[in-house]
């Protein structure tokens, strides 16, 4: 049976991510063993990797680095073995070069760019950006297929990734101007929103991830 490793590094809502993936698997007919883990060997061997993340950028980066061998194992799976990788929310932000939430924190450096405070051009718009907003695909991608004409997904964040290269941007969302809602490169995909909390649209995207063969 193929395996999916959700990286468990002390950040928030891993249970929701696990249940949502299991549900998407069951409905999409995917046979897959989903585990929450911080064991480097399990991660390095996994067929698919999901990096969740909720909260403060520096805390998440610290939590990830504190698990011995985990970053190396993720890199082994994602780069040496080319396994599909999905980063969610801060898990997506960690793919960037650097995070600038309160303090400057290095990220994994996979996607060129920095994570910065949202700056909508309408100053009356509340921060955090919280709720359902529309995903606009800028680069066709297997994970974004069949989401419907105007897919709504759930966001809850104050910071967003500014990508150096438009090539890495898969989808944007408008909140007083566009911000990066999803990044993609080769076998890597990152979602600023929460597919695990985006009802049917999220289930579809997760199912797409499970059948993705980059």
């Amino acid at each position: 049976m193929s395996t999916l490793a959700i990286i468990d590094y002390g950040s928030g809502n891993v249970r929701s991510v696990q249940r949502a993936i299991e549900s998407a698997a069951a409905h999409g007919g995917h046979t897959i063993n989903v585990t929450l883990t911080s064991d480097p060997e399990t991660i390095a061997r996994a067929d698919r990797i999901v990096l969740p993340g909720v909260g403060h950028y520096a805390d998440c980066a610290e939590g990830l680095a504190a698990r011995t061998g985990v970053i190396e194992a993720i890199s082994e799976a994602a780069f040496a073995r080319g396994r599909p990788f999905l980063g969610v929310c801060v898990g997506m932000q960690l793919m960037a070069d650097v995070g600038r939430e309160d303090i400057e924190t290095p990220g994994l450096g996979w996607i060129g760019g920095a994570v910065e405070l949202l700056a909508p051009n309408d100053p009356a718009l509340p921060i955090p950006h919280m709720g359902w907003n529309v995903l606009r695909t800028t680069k066709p991608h297997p994970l974004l297929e069949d989401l419907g004409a105007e897919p709504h997904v759930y966001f809850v964040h104050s910071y967003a990734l500014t990508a150096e290269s438009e090539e890495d941007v898969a989808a944007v969302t408008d909140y007083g101007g566009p911000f990066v809602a999803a990044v993609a490169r080769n076998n890597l995909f990152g979602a600023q929103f929460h597919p695990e909390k985006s009802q049917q649209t999220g289930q579809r995207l997760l199912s797409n991830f499970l059948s993705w063969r980059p």
Partner: protein
Amino acid sequence: MLKVRVIPCLDVKDGRTVKGVNFVDLRDAGDPVALARAYDAQGADELCFLDITASVEERGAMINVIERTADACFMPLTVGGGVRKPDDMVAMLKAGADKVAINTAAVLEPEILTACARKVGAQAVVMALDVRREGDGWGVYTHGGRKSAGKDAVAFAKRAAELGAGEILLTSMDRDGTRDGYDLDLLRAIRDVVHVPIVASGGAGNVQHMADAVSLGGADAVLAASIFHFGEASVADAKRALAAAGAPVRWTEETAA
């Protein structure tokens, strides 16, 4: 464009819903998980669970409710009640909540909001503010609206947002249960001073009240209990009224019909 959220709210005691619920086709209206599933199917944008369990010992039941809901409903979930410290928030987030509301503890010691935000991120910290009209303004209340904190609500809301609350769940105790509509003056007064999202609560008697809270009160989300639980209005009814008033709403397959 960001959509206005429609949020059904459930009061939960010892793991069971307490406010009268009269839901068609629901075998056990006392089961919060069954209700959550029903609202999920209706296209609710978020769910709110408020734990009104009296004793700390029985709080485990709430964690169980959150876990079972999060296992079945892949939608945003806000949970409140009895939250005193950052670790209480962590426990609820681990169980499957996305945001945690804090009331009494943060009114008595506002700095706890900073500690909570540092621990779980400001986006997960909701300041549940229970207020009553006092003279020309509004006062903050604690302990489920029974005790005056002797604090001005507008000033406190501003401070709470500065300290780390990522959202204000604003309940008018004067209107709660009256069905006279949300307190629009209160909403506007708080809107003027905070930059975080505001959830209107207390007083919804019909769907027009919800539209007013957004178009006249400046709310980012509307929360209601009875009118949903008694089947007087569906989530789709609420969204139609909001849309008619010019507010952006999210249509799902369920609500589009």
